[in-house]
């Protein structure tokens, strides 16, 4: 029986799919939202996370994910009785969900931290602040990335 074009293509397609799936399953390169949730729970524990008080300044559209300026600030009087203990920043789709942990104290005066980060894909960035009364507050931002970072080939 002569092989038709349709049979040949479906067979070739099947081989390709079978060949690529094991690679994908063996090496998930992007942090899944489950990894993001786990990373957040590692910091927060079982405590509830409320939305608000935290501000995340980050461009909504970035051309180069290799260096994205980011500023996190928290509305806090920064007194000995009421201050921000730490700020934690996470991402959704980089190979690893953590970006940075920043530890402050009443002597900080202002709860604000700036740095430059890498983003491997268009994704969400989450900033969580831990206050001195051990409540957690968060903010989320969506960022569109046109040139990805982290996993590109070396030249």
């Amino acid at each position, binding site marked *: 029986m002569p092989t038709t074009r349709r049979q040949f293509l479906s067979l070739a397609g099947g081989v390709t799919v079978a060949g690529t799936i094991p690679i994908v399953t063996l090496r998930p390169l992007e942090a899944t939202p489950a990894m993001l949730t786990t990373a957040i729970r590692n910091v927060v524990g079982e405590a509830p996370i409320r939305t608000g008080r935290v501000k995340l300044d980050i461009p909504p559209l970035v051309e180069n994910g290799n260096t994205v300026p980011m500023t996190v600030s928290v509305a806090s009087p920064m007194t000995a009785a009421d201050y921000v203990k730490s700020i934690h920043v996470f991402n959704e789709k980089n190979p690893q969900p953590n970006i940075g942990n920043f530890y402050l104290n009443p*002597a900080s005066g202002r709860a604000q931290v700036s*740095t430059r980060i890498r983003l491997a894909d268009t994704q969400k960035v989450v900033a969580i602040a831990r206050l001195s009364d051990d409540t957690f507050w968060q903010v989320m931002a969506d960022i569109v990335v046109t040139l990805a970072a982290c996993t590109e080939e070396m030249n």
Partner: protein
Amino acid sequence: MPALINVPAKAKRGDIIEIRTLTSHIMETGFRHTADGRLVPRDIITSFTCRYNGTEIFRADLFPAIAANPYLSFFTVAKESGKFEFEWMGDNGYCSTASASITVE
């Protein structure tokens, strides 16, 4: 020049001052491959500490998602004249330090 530090030379007592630091480091993520498929090993700064006259005022844990040549800006209250000491630690025993002075009136 391994690090650039920006601290105001003078401040009034009680002023909130901004401290900016920039250090030179590749921050290799450990997720990149060479053209022939070999994984490039991770080489990053993992922690940064700032001390003001010996007291820790700011600390950060860094991850591969921090861009190369890590830049950090943070704040503190100017309490007394003295010295800020900065320390970066990382993979493969990396350690780098810097310092800056301030006069508080």
